[in-house]
């Protein structure tokens, strides 16, 4: 429950900051989208799998949003977000069928390769995709309202916050659920899963869809925010940043991804102020330190892990009869 309260406080803080300092809205929305994407990556990390190509689902969703909105400028922002998620889910479902047969480095690399295919194709077919400069889209109506920029951004901010809260809770519930436990089982012992009558691939496929959907949502939000989508959204370095955040936050608790995202944004802000062009140095250093010092990430070392464990149990496997 403490985790829940923490996230609510966090959400409130974001909202206040965004309303008081208008320029903060953009970094906060970007940060939340990173958090959502990293949450997706963290889901797979539960199964011990790390994808270095999940930015491709942000990209799929982003371009879906752009294409739709350019075709039907009157389409509502919320619908566009939904469309983006659906596109990512569909892509995830299809690609998932193939990649769930792979593990560890091969899993990571195949995802990487697929994302690079998408990245290169989007960059190439200029007439359709606008090439590496991507596609611009006009500000769509949002939740039925025609908003000017400040209002529009606030709306996006609120949407991002609510989505993060809701999905964070859902994913946390999933972690605790039967499917989630089985997912974690893939990390430790697939043979046993098989001998318990479960299909590791199917379980991983479910997790893969979830992660794709989350990355899709993240992409859709960013694209609506900047009114522009470019292949960069799917470049492997961005996937790497998702992984970075997920590792930083740890996959012990859904909250981790968002904590990681905050740290990431702070590093970027501080970095660009101190080191100008060479801020990525800080990222690298942080990543290495985290892996050396706390490979399980922030939520892995914080007591929050224990709360969530006890919480998972209550959430998921309620006794039908008798004691727990």
């Amino acid at each position, binding site marked *: 429950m403490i985790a829940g309260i923490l996230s609510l406080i966090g959400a409130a803080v974001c909202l206040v900051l965004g309303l008081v300092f208008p320029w903060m809205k953009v970094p906060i929305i970007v940060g939340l989208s990173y958090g959502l994407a990293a949450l997706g990556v963290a889901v797979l990390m539960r199964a011990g799998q790390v994808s270095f190509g999940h930015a491709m689902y942000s990209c799929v969703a982003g371009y879906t949003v752009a294409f739709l909105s350019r075709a039907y400028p009157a389409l509502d922002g919320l619908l566009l977000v939904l469309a983006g998620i659906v596109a990512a889910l569909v892509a995830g479902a299809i690609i998932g069928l193939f990649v769930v047969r792979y593990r560890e480095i091969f899993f990571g690399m195949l995802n990487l390769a697929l994302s690079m295919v998408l990245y290169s194709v989007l960059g190439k077919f200029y007439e359709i995709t606008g090439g590496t400069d991507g596609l611009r889209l006009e500000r769509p109506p949002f939740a039925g309202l025609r908003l000017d920029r400040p209002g529009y951004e606030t709306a996006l901010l609120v949407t991002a916050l609510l989505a993060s809260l809701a999905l964070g809770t859902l994913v946390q519930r999933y972690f605790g659920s039967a*499917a989630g436990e089985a997912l*974690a*089982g893939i990390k430790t012992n697939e043979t046993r899963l098989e*001998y318990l009558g479960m299909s590791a691939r199917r*379980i991983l496929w479910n997790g893969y869809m979830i992660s794709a959907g989350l990355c899709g949502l993240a992409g859709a939000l960013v694209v609506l925010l900047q009114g522009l989508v470019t292949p960069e959204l799917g470049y492997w370095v961005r996937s790497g940043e998702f992984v970075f955040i997920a590792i930083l936050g740890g996959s012990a608790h859904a909250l981790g991804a968002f904590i990681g995202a905050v740290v990431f944004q702070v590093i970027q802000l501080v970095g660009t102020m101190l080191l100008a062009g060479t801020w990525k140095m800080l990222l690298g250093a942080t990543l290495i330190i985290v892996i050396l010092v706390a490979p399980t990430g922030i939520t892995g070392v914080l007591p929050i892990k224990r709360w969530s464990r006890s919480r998972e149990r209550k959430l998921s496997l309620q006794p039908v*009869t008798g004691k727990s």
Partner: protein
Amino acid sequence: MELVRTENLCLAFGGIVVADNINFSLQEGERLAVIGANGAGKTTFINIVTGYLRARSGRIFFSGTDVTKMPPRGIVHLGLGRSFQLPQLFLQHTVRQCLELAAVGRIGSLPLLKSLSASVDQSEIDHTLEVTGLAARGEEMASALGEGERKLLDIAMALVLRPKLLIMDEPTSGVASEEKHEIMATIMSALAERKVTSWFVEHDVDVVTRHATRVAAWISGRIAADGKPEQVFADPEIRRQVLGTH
């Protein structure tokens, strides 16, 4: 009735024949002990029967169904449980969570949304913990268990699936000999209580004679002798080759 039947089962790795045209049958209610030197093909045969390895030729039936091309999970759902020489546990889960997973397995792979709210009969799990003597360790991480307890948890997970047949690969290996009998006793009573047919690989003659109704002795991919313990152990060839005694 007949639980397992194999017809002309063959498999070879490279040059080495690990299953040499095996025709084998196991009846409900039997307690089969499999003996044989390491590399004789005991585990390989189990892996083939449980669908982990594909036979090069031959067919396998489990309680009447042809399972020759079935993956392990399919056969498991038909009522075949299995434990391993090296216990296959979820070391990052607690003992109880391991059993909960097994219980989920029995429900079968659920669609995602259902499994979010899938609930498990805890009383069943508590009971299994009791009969396998793990009741006290329920909230421990599986990684914290000793070798003997790991064996028991390994078997307990199989039991939660309520199998008709439980195949145990060396349930007492790596356990101090004084513990062996105690562990075997626990397991066998648990099985007896649920009327589970058992098939276990075992080296210790005492254990075998005490718990088995039938013994199959393996020599280089073949069943060299099969029958009542006293008969099999009477065979000098078996004594020499399998037990290494005269």
